């Protein structure tokens, strides 16, 4: 097993650790203690989870690679005017979604047309983005970096800027053996950081491991969830990674065709990738365009808001019948997917190091 950080870095992190411990001592999660393990970045994947799609086979996860990826994730130099970093729209406390923003803000205040998704357990994703257009975690960052309304940069200029930074030359040397900065190394380091964003310490996970139990409301919600939601939001990752039209009225100002944008197939119109529901309590607003701000609104949509169309998912043709109490219980269950350890893990935070 490789150590997550060097002894020097541990010293730097000790302050943060105590701070976290102080804050988290009131947390309900019994796993959070002052002895947060900072020594090991390698995941301990829970029993019963499927095999990840991306397993670092050709990009070994190392402390130095993770460190470089971490620095790049928080680096505004990735944008053309050095104002926007990945973390601008992917905030740790929001499960690396962007709190309270329906659309992402890019350079010069430009607006995108989709909601920034949460980033967690990405190694199980067979493809990325709401429309699934990206087929490998390593090349995912090329999309926001080059998108004119996000970071508006070119890959070659990012490499140029990084190679002129002594900080980055050192980080690249630590990670890859010499100071050469190139896009492949940059992307592989980012993949190490993004791929190491594991969330598997929620109350749901504790219950699953037999270390905690649901309240009555949570249990009733879980039972309803399994009956009415889990065919698409498949446990334990809470997504089937399929593309589905869940009956949202098309926003005619944007006309986002969804999956069809990638496949050019009419049968894929208005379909979007099923999102994971992990940390859903913290990653509002919801849906591919962030149109809903509460979980109540989301459930109401499935109860009474489904708009019929040729590509509507057949499972939703009649909506989902839920009483007011059912909704309350389902929301109680959904809140057990909140993983406080993930949301506050100092290794992922901007202030780490």
């Amino acid at each position: 097993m490789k150590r997550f950080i060097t002894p020097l870095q541990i010293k730097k992190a000790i302050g943060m650790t105590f701070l976290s411990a102080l804050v988290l001592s009131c947390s309900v999660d019994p796993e959070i203690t002052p002895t947060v393990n900072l020594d090991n970045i390698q995941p301990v994947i829970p029993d019963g989870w499927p095999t990840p799609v991306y397993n670092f086979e050709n990009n070994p996860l190392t402390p130095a690679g993770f460190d470089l990826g971490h620095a790049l994730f928080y680096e505004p130099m990735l944008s053309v005017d050095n104002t926007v970093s990945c973390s601008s729209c992917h905030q740790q406390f929001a499960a690396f979604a962007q709190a309270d923003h329906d659309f992402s803000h890019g350079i010069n205040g430009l607006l995108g047309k989709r909601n920034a998704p949460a980033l967690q357990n990405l190694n199980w994703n067979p493809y990325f983005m709401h429309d699934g257009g990206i087929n490998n975690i390593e090349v995912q960052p090329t999309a926001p970096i080059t998108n004119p309304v996000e970071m508006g940069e070119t890959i070659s200029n990012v490499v140029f800027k990084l190679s002129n930074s002594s900080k980055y030359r050192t980080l690249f040397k630590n990670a890859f053996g010499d100071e050469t900065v190139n896009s492949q190394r940059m992307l592989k380091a980012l993949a190490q950081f993004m791929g190491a964003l594991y969330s598997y310490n929620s109350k749901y996970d504790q219950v699953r491991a037999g270390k905690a139990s649901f309240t009555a409301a949570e249990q009733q919600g879980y039972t309803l969830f399994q009956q009415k939601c889990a065919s698409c939001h498949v446990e334990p990752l809470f997504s089937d990674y399929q593309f589905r039209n869940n009956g949202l009225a098309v926003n005619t100002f944007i006309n986002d065709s969804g999956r069809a944008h990638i496949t050019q197939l009419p049968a894929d119109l208005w379909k979007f990738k099923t999102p994971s529901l992990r940390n859903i309590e913290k990653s509002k607003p919801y849906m591919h365009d962030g149109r809903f701000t509460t979980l109540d609104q989301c459930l109401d949509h499935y109860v009474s808001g489904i708009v019929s169309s040729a590509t509507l998912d057949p499972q939703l043709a009649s909506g989902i019948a839920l009483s007011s109490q059912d909704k309350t219980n389902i929301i109680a269950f959904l809140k057990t997917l909140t993983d406080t350890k993930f949301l506050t893990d100092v290794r992922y935070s901007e202030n780490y190091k």
Partner: protein
Amino acid sequence: MRMKKQFLKTYLFIFACGLAVVVSCKKYHAPAPEPMPAAVTPGPDTTGSLDIVMSNVVNGVPLVLGTQKYTNANSDTFIVNTYKYYFTNIRLTTSGGYAWSPAESYYLVDQSNPSSLILHVSGIPRASYSSIEFMIGVDKNRNTSGAQTGALDPANGMFWSWNTGYIMAKLEGTSPQSGDNYKKLTFHLGGFSGAFSVLRSVQLPFPNAAQVTETHKPQVNMNCDVAEWFKTPNTISFGTVYGVTTSNTNAKNIADNYADMFTITSVVN
């Protein structure tokens, strides 16, 4: 850097093994090499190299970017400002049926970059080769296996970030007949799988054998004719087809056209 190291390793390995490996045929399953020209004395190292010298042309006339006017098969006139394509997966074969491929061969030919017009192929087992095969574009594997480098570096501007995959061939220019408001021509041809794939395999016989030894480096002179993009079997009218930037029927039709754009003009031993 990594490629260089890999190459060095491969080279050293072959050098160390010397004649034994190739002659015993265990590594390559090669038949005995054909006799060399009298002037060539084989040395202890039995691999050599060859150069493919690419001439991009339009209707047989050398391509000049930015200024020269050309005419397509539909009689539309046009100017080319950018012309780039991937030339990959080389395979050389002898008349005896022996075939050799480099561990990897990915070249980005860019008309604006003269050094990219000479494709060095090295580590070739000594033999007399009678034909070459290659691919226009980047194979599916390299489109789906994450961050690449060298010719395949996404920084080269031949990569779709929003719908992962390489732009296999890119032609940008202008035409008075273009249906575009600004009279632009924008052909970014990509798509590595499915019905609209623009990958094309090419096989060309050498007019005379390319005789590769450790000291003897043949030069393969090749033409790539831009006019073929718009000619047969699908005549392209710039009035209706002037911008192709996604994987679709137009992209596929142009790929069907450019599949035969390469010709070998001579092999100089």
